[in-house]
Each structure stands twice: as C-alpha cells, then as structure tokens.
C-alpha cells in the first residue's frame, strides 16, 4: 500500500509541475488558457528532437528555453491584446491555438507515437521494503517539489515575486505604484510556459509523446487548478497531491469509478467551496 501512495505522490507532483504555470497565468492575467496543454506538448516535442542531438538534459534545456520564449511571445501577441475582453473570447482564442499547435505537430512530426529513454543517471530501480521502485519516478517527485519550492521562494522572497503577488491581487493599484505589469505578465507567462514545456520532457520517458498528449493532460491540469482555487499555487499543490492519491487509490479500491473520481471531487469542491481549497489568489 505504501508503494501505491508513493505512486500517487509521483503523479501528484508531476501534475503540480504541469498545472503550476496555469495557476500562475490565471493569477496574473485572469486567463483560462486552453493552450496550456499545447505548451506541454510543444515542450515534449522540442525536447524529444533536441535530445536526439544533446541527450535528455539538452532536451530539457531546449524545451525550457524554447517554451519560455514562446510564452513571452504568447503574452505579448495574444494575451495582451485580449486584456479586458470577454473571458469567452480568450477561451476560444486559446482553444484555437491548441488546435493549431496540434496540427503543427502532426504536420512536422506526424501522428506516430514516440518515447525517449530516461537519462542513464536516473535509470534503474531502487530496492524498497518488499519491492523495487523506478529511480526516475523518484526523480519526478524531486522535480515537482523543486518547482513548488522554487516558485514559493521566488514569489515570497524576491522583489519580482512581491510585484507578481501585488499585481495578482490588484493590477491597477500595482501599476499605479509603478509596477510594469505588462513586463511582469510576459515574465510570468514565460515562466509558466517553460514549466509546462519542462513537464512535457520530464513526462516523456513515462508517458509517450503524441499529438493527443495535450488534450490528455489539460483536463487533469484544470481539475487541479479548479480544486485548488483559481490562481492559487498553494491550493494547486494540495489539489495535485490529492488528485494523485485519488488516481491511485481509485484504481486499487474503486476500479470501476477511477475515471469518474476526479470529477466527483471537483463537483464536491465547487458545491461546498466554490473558490477552491485555498480560496484566494497567489
């Protein structure tokens, strides 16, 4: 059973790494970004291609940098012009971007499914009481915790983090106080996109790469953000860990309902605590 809880922790921390960018973007830009799954997919494909030349770590770096640049461009060219528009417009535009990204991948990489191996440093298994466990999965837990810790440190201990929190709370007052919210938004969307791209590479040795991967992960990511409280990183972290456990324990104890459980949890949270577990923004 302890191993299954560890399995849940792996999926939960991975989900947080993926969904944290979504929470950040919503916190600052109030944007429901349906293209977030596409950023994850693009990161995986960029990383997969770069890894052929520069190995896993090279692929991870290329995905992070490539997606950061793409994120900044996304903010400047799409999110900024859409500021103040009906949320439905933003939703439709980002949904369109997701579809375009999928077609882009199909055109240049095809519909085939790919997978790439974990780095040699993290391959193999470790012996745990009574069983073995893949080292790479433990590395995913470390990655998720590193992302959570890094973001928490950045947001609470740095000046830029202070600006991000201020602008998330009230962008107008923050701007009046001299915070350049446009530059700040570009930075936050860039960081969020880079995290999604890195999550794509980190997931690749476990979850294969295909054009359908964007849609696959988007639903889980939104469930995390909604349960956690839109825009709340702490809430997203808690929600991701809960969802990870529900995913695993559902398979073990309620296999017929596994696919339904995350949605039931989301419904329950929306009914009893509509603002999510955290109930407040960053």
């Amino acid at each position: 059973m302890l191993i299954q809880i560890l399995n849940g922790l792996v999926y939960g921390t991975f989900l947080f790494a993926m969904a944290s960018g979504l929470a950040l973007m919503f916190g600052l830009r109030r944007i429901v970004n349906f293209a977030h799954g596409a950023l994850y997919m693009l990161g995986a494909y960029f990383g997969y291609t770069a890894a052929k030349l520069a190995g896993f770590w090279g692929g991870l770096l290329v995905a992070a940098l490539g997606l950061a640049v793409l994120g900044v461009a996304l903010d400047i060219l799409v999110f900024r012009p859409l500021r103040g528009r009906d949320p439905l417009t933003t939703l439709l535009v980002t949904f369109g971007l997701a579809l375009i990204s999928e077609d882009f991948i199909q055109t240049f990489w095809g519909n085939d499914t790919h997978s790439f191996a974990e780095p040699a440093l993290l391959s193999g298994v470790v012996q745990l009481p009574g069983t073995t466990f893949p080292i790479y999965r433990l590395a995913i837990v470390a990655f998720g915790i590193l992302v959570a810790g890094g973001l928490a440190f950045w947001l609470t201990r740095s000046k830029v983090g202070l600006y991000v929190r201020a602008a998330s709370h009230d962008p107008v007052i923050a701007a009046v106080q001299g915070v350049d919210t446009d530059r700040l938004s570009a930075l936050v969307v860039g960081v969020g996109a880079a995290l999604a791209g890195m999550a794509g590479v980190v997931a690749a040795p476990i979850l294969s790469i295909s054009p359908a991967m964007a849609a696959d992960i988007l639903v889980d990511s939104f469930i995390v953000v909604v349960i956690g409280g839109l825009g709340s990183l702490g809430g997203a972290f808690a929600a991701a860990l809960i969802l990870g456990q529900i995913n695993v324990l559902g398979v073990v104890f309620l296999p017929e309902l596994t696919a339904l459980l995350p949605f039931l949890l989301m419904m329950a949270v929306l009914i009893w605590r509509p603002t999510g577990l955290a109930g407040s923004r960053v």
Partner: protein
Amino acid sequence: MKHSLIKLAAPLALAALVALPGLPAYAQSGPVKIGVATSLTGPYADLGEEVKRAVTFAAKEAAAKGTLKGRTVQYEFADAETDPEVARRASEKLVLGGYKLLVGLISSAQGLAVGGQLEKWDALYLATINKSNKLTADACNTRMFRANHSDAMDMAVIGPWLKSRPEKDWVIMAADYAWGRDSAEEFTKAAKVAGKNLKASYFAPIGTKDYAPHIQQIKDQKAQGMWVAISGRDAINFGVQADQFGLLKTIFPVSQSFAVPLTIKGMGPIAEGIWGIINYSDGLDTPANKAFVAAWKKEFNRDPANFEAETYVGMQLLFAAVAKAGSDEPEKVAKALEGLSLDDTIFGKVTMRAQDHQLIMPNYMGKVGKVGAELKPVIEMAVDGSIATPAPDPSCKMK
C-alpha cells in the same frame, strides 16, 4: 386512352424489369463512395493513420487494376475519436452524405454502436480492426461484417499453445472496453481449459496515462504469466512503464494487439522477446503478400503493419463485393459479401462466412525479434483458417 395506357405500361414494364430474376444487375455509374469513420485524434490516432493509409492504398490499387469496372472510388474521412457516441455521429454524417459503405472504426465499442444503426441508415459496415466477438455473435446483423481476426480466432491459437507453457499462475491486464473485456473473458476460458490458475484481472480505461497502480497490483500477485490486451499508445505507455518497474523481467507476457509494429516502434528494445498473437506479418510467404509489401514500401517507404494489412484485405473484399453486385447499394453489397471468397489475398484464400459474417483466414503466433536491424513480430506458429476460425457463435441470429 392511348396515353393513359402508355402511362400505365411504362412503370409496369420498368417494375417487371427490376423484378425479373436472373437478369444482370443494373450497372451503376459514378464513384463508389466509402465512408471512413476512424480515430483521427485521441489515443488511437496512430491506428487511424494506419486505416487511412490502407484505404487510400487499396482504392488506388482498385482503380489501377480496374476492379470496379471503370468506376472510381471516392472516400471521405471522419473523426470518430475513441468514443462510441462520437463514432455513431460521425458515421451517420457520412451516411447522410451518401457514404453508405462504412469502414475504419478502431474500438469494438464503436463498431457495436454503429452496427445497430445500419439497417435504419440503409448502410453497411465492414470492420477491419474491431476484435470483440460480439460483432459476429449476439450483435451480428445482415449489414455488419468483419474482415479481421476476432478474439475467438486469436484464442483458438492461444488455447492449445497455453497448455504447453510451464507458467502456472497468470494475470490479465486489458483495456476497459468491449474488446479488452472480451479478450479477458476468452483468455479466462482458455486458461481454465489449459489448467492454469488465473489470479486476477485488471482493466484500465482507454487513454490511461499512469499505469503504475496497475503494475504494482500485478507485481503483488507474483504470477508467472501475464495476458496483455492493450493497444495503440496505451500499449506503449504500459510497456515502457512495466519495464521501468522491472515487471517485464519477472513475468512472461503474452499479448494480443500489444506488441505490433506500431507499438514495437514506440517501445523500442524492451519489446524484444514479447510473445503474442501475430495477425499479420510482412514476411508471410504468399505471392500476393510479396507484391503487396513491395508496392506498400514504394508508396509509403515503410513496411505494412497488421491493421494496415487487415484493412487492405477488407477493402479488397468490399470492392470485389461491389463488382459482384454491380452496385454499391448497401443491401446488394451485403448480399454479395455473404460467402464471397478471394483466392489470392495476402493471407491466401479467404472466405466471408455467410452465417456470422466473419472472414475465414489463417492466424499466427510468435514473438518480437530482430529482422535485420529492425524489431518485428516473427511468426513461430501458423494455424490454418479452418482451425483458426471457430464455428459461428450460436447467439448470432442474422436479422
């Protein structure tokens, strides 16, 4: 008076002509319209790609060989995703657009969802991927046919082989829908007959990302053998993750649609040595297969995979039935398909059994091995169609 008689006589003469038996069927003109409802997106999108390649290839070949006596083939693709309801809608749209000869659905649940509507739509569905026995058993009908191997056909090969295996305790890991459930049920029966102990059965929905909880459950069972019935991208995810957990080193995996060319490519070296049903191999030693493989490689610069080959044979049957019927009207094509034999296919002679609409053809078993530098399913055992195709299921009542 004269005019009235002429008016009366003309339709009567036409009706008599149509009703007269023994006259050659009225040859239609215009293209033969094929509706291809398949998975263009979602976890089975790469299988949908295989269907697309096979349909375009077969249509091109039929045009070049004049199979349809001068008629051309017009095909329309529609995204059936993986959901039965989406498949039903996509197929209905194709039918309303005049594409009444349907092919291409990936999951058996989709085939079953469409199968029940065919009479109402005045359409025909020829399955080339769906394995669930139900299609040719209790859900069979006059408008639904299957040109690929069913679960029962695969198990007719597995059953006797299983008896010879030393592994005593087995587990099942299958996809949680009609095909996976059907496959698990068939394997359970085969294991019982072979005197094996089935310890547990696990099912995962289509599109499952993390198989870790299932893999841990399988490890906890400490079984020696594992029947795997997962396909497409899910198969790659399960295979890769099972290997990371060290499961593939401690258990003997035998599979159905799990280690096929498409998934072997995705899994890489870990697929080597996995045993399973091989519904088709590009190494089949028939003249038609050699010609097919050469033409396929020229067209797509790759070897044909199992679902591509089975869909190709299905299309050949469909075109032959249209030619025999002299019409692409679904009812007439269905009649022409019943009992239709093709002598020279990639599998050798095949026959569409009239009783349950299952194609009688050989089946194979083997393991993934190196052919040159490439990993491929390598046939170790071939079973003739007469043995590999079990008798029609008594629950099939044609209606």
